[in-house]
């Protein structure tokens, strides 16, 4: 295994934030499933947790960690190490530890209580959402040297994707309700990884009554198997695109 990844993961484990995050996820998941007799209800509650808390923790923890490892990056840069390797190791180290936390905290109770196909979809989405927001944190933090500004950007991005985006979408739908804008809405939804994940899980949960407006439109287009594949593809782009842009920026950065 890459030695730098090892150091990054050891450092993150020492930090204990990830451990606390694991415990919080575990406490939430176990209690949600213990309180509800119906596992679908439990999953719906947990869905909101996954779609709010997981991105928040991923993006903020990664941003702060990146700023705090500026010394580490500087030290490594004077050593015979490729820049892309340093950046990649940080990305893999952060993603792996956050994924591990998600799997241990939320994954195990989900696998135990929920029906297999839904629980798998939930796990996959949790994993993808974690990685997408680590990737977004990399993009945000490469643009500014100022830590406070960087964390501010991270919080704003989370607010935008988790809350503001749906508001904007609803606004669009009401304003243009006289026009056939469903296709446009489908396209716009693809611009938000959280929405995509929510739609994917809801489509598997078979509770279309609770899907809300975004999901209802989406079901026509992405209810099929090929639709799921397209969504997964778009989400993969969401994982790699921000990271790739941040990497090309980092390669040209003066330190």
């Amino acid at each position, binding site marked *: 295994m890459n030695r730098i990844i090892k150091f990054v993961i050891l*450092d993150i484990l020492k930090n204990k934030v990830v451990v606390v995050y694991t415990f919080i996820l575990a406490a939430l998941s176990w209690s949600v499933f213990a309180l509800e007799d119906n596992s679908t209800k439990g999953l719906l509650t947990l869905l909101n947790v996954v779609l709010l808390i997981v991105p928040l923790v991923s993006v903020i923890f990664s941003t702060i960690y990146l700023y705090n490892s500026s*010394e580490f990056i500087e030290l490594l840069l*004077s*050593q*015979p190490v*490729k820049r892309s390797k340093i950046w990649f190791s940080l990305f893999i180290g952060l993603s792996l530890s956050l994924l591990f936390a998600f799997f241990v905290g939320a994954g195990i109770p989900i696998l135990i209580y929920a029906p297999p196909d839904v629980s798998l979809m939930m796990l996959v989405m949790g994993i993808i959402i974690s990685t997408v927001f680590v990737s977004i944190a990399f993009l945000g933090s490469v643009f500014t040297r100022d830590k406070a500004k960087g964390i501010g950007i991270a919080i704003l991005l989370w607010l935008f994707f988790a809350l503001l985006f749906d508001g904007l979408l609803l606004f669009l739908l009401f304003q243009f309700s006289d026009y056939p804008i469903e296709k446009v809405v489908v396209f716009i939804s693809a611009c938000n990884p959280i929405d995509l994940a929510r739609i994917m899980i809801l489509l598997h949960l078979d509770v279309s009554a609770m899907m809300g407006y975004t999901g209802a439109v989406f079901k026509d287009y992405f209810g099929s198997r090929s639709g799921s594949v397209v969504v997964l593809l778009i989400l993969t782009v969401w994982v790699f695109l921000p990271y790739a842009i941040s990497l090309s920026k980092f390669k040209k950065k003066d330190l």
Partner: protein
Amino acid sequence: MIVVENLCKQFGKLQVLDHVNLTCSKGECIALIGPNACGKTTLIKSILGMVIPDSGSIRFNGEFINRQYLYRNSIGYMPQIGRYPDNMSIGQIMEMIREIRNYQSNTDEELLEAFKLKDLFQKRMRTLSGGTTQKVSATLAFLFHPQVLILDEPTAGLDPLASEILKEKIVKEKKNGRLILITSHLLSELDDLVTQIVFMQEGRVHFHKTVEALKLDTGEEKLSKAISSILKQSQHE
């Protein structure tokens, strides 16, 4: 060993390096001097690949270094202000860099012993004083028997005893045929160390001479006086 050609770098509107040319060969001990903000550290960081120049080229042993990294295997770098991960101890940092460099043979632990850092191996970097951090930086620079040593203000922040130890080590490595690049403001300290002087001003290399030539030109015995007489001349012109 290191050839710098027409190197330019701008930070915003400020031209930090302006067509810098420099040639350094084996066995030389070169002092990079000049007023604050004249581009010394930027030049050094460009050689290390930490700053990406706007134009111009740097060759290390005949090969261009842009986007390369393996050449740094033969460089030991001591930064002006060493910044290290807070949570790691001195021992862990040394072990980590050895692992990253994949260095199997014997490391050069002379400075480690001389600075008595072994007793502090468990201490976290956060708790160290500025001087001790400098000692760690110096030790790391020399640890892997590098061909080239780049020392940015090596004696700043060190107590007289420690800086004497470091100077002795530099002289020793110079005799071993290493190329040594030093930046410093303490001209009196450089007197018995360096063989060549590179004087930089406003991002340009003002002159590059051997110490003998410099002393001959100015008729001064001491390096510090020679430099100040040159500075006075350039002010009169």
